[in-house]
Each structure stands twice: as C-alpha cells, then as structure tokens.
C-alpha cells in the first residue's frame, strides 16, 4: 500500500489489556479480571512433589497454586484440598486438571457473580491460548465490584446535585 512501515502487533489488544496497560474507550479504566488478578501467585510444574510445592505456597502466604508448563500454559490447580494430599505425590497426580479459566477483559462484576455462583474461591485468568496472566481471588473481585458500584453511586449523586 506504499506505507513507509507497517507493523503487526500480533498479540493484540488482549495482550495489552492483560498487562494492565491504559486504554481509551467507554470501558477504559473499569476493573476487569486481568486488572484485579494477582500476578504474584505461586506456580508449580507437573514433575514437582506435593510436599515441596506446599512448603513454597505456604511460605508465600497462599493456600493455592496454579500448575503450568514451561510456556506458562495452565494445566491444573492445586487448591486447599489438593495441597493436603500425600507429600510424596507428584503434582501431576495430585492436581485438579482442566480448571475453568477466564479471559483478562471480563468485567469484574461478571467475574464476581461467576465466582459466587460457582462457589469458586479463586480462578486462573489466562490469555486465549491458555497462558497464565494471574490468579483472581473471589474476595478481590467482590471488593473491586462493590467499590465500583459505590463510586458510580457517588458520581450519580454528584451529577444530580
């Protein structure tokens, strides 16, 4: 087309939003699964033993852990229940396989409802090809949702006065 240079941002808007970078538009700045998820959650791999993973998870102040491969693709979850198993077991045998994962752009209100309705204390947030973005805690999702609602009420009151 005769342009000096054309570049393709292959990972696209999803990658940008998953990284918590600013956007413009009517949903800009609103909290989402990706922006509220914690990015410091512990991870482990299939070949590790439950005992060593449990120690690491507890030391980090968590009670759950995401099982990933070398490309950070989510393979399973080690929740409270799974972490109480035989310490000699491999993660591959102890984990809960195929957990539901959520995309980073899902509005936090939708996520809060989902986690309450399905009684999920945590949910892994991933890119569309399954790579881990972060771990969303139900308590964080609910807090962000209620703060957003309170903010909208304040804004409406300010506009009405």
């Amino acid at each position, binding site marked *: 087309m005769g342009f000096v240079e054309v570049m393709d*941002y292959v990972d696209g808007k999803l990658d940008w939003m998953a990284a918590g970078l600013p956007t413009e538009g009517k949903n800009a700045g609103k909290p989402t699964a990706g922006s509220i998820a914690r990015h410091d959650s512990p991870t482990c791999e299939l070949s590790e033993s439950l005992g060593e993973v449990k120690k690491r998870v507890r030391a980090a102040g968590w009670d759950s852990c995401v099982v990933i491969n070398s490309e950070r693709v989510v393979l399973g979850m080690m929740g409270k229940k799974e972490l109480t198993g035989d310490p000699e077991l491999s993660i591959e045998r102890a984990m809960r396989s195929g957990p539901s994962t959520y995309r980073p752009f899902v509005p936090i209100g939708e996520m809060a409802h989902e986690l309450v309705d399905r009684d999920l204390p945590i949910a892994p947030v991933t890119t569309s090809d399954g790579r881990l973005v972060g771990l969303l805690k139900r308590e964080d999702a609910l807090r962000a949702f209620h703060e957003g609602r309170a903010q909208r009420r304040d804004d409406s009151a300010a506009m009405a006065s």
Partner: protein
Amino acid sequence: MPRSIERAEVQKLAGGRTRFVEVLPAREYEKNHLPGAIHLPLRQLETLARPTLDPARPVVVYCWDSG
C-alpha cells in the same frame, strides 16, 4: 509484509509518530482501544487505509490476539 512486533516495542512507539490502527468491529473498538488508536475495520482496511493514513508515518495494526 508487515513486521511482527511485541508489546515492549508497541509501548516504545506509543505516543510518537506511529499511527495505531484497530481492525476489530466498531463495538469492540468503542469499548476499549489502545491510546490514540483509530478504527479501520478489517473488511475496509484496503479501501480506507490510503485516504485515512499518512503513508510517511509508520503504522501498527492490531486485532484481539494472535489467534
């Protein structure tokens, strides 16, 4: 053939001479887009790019993801 770039390079280019173009449907663009990006739907890219964009400025095109 466009050159593939990653987020780190996109961040360096943002706010400079480079134009950002989102090719997703209008509804998606209206919700969220990269700062300063304009909207040219993929189906009309060929016909709208010329009259809309300055060929002397670099262009970054993006959609949702690599899928």
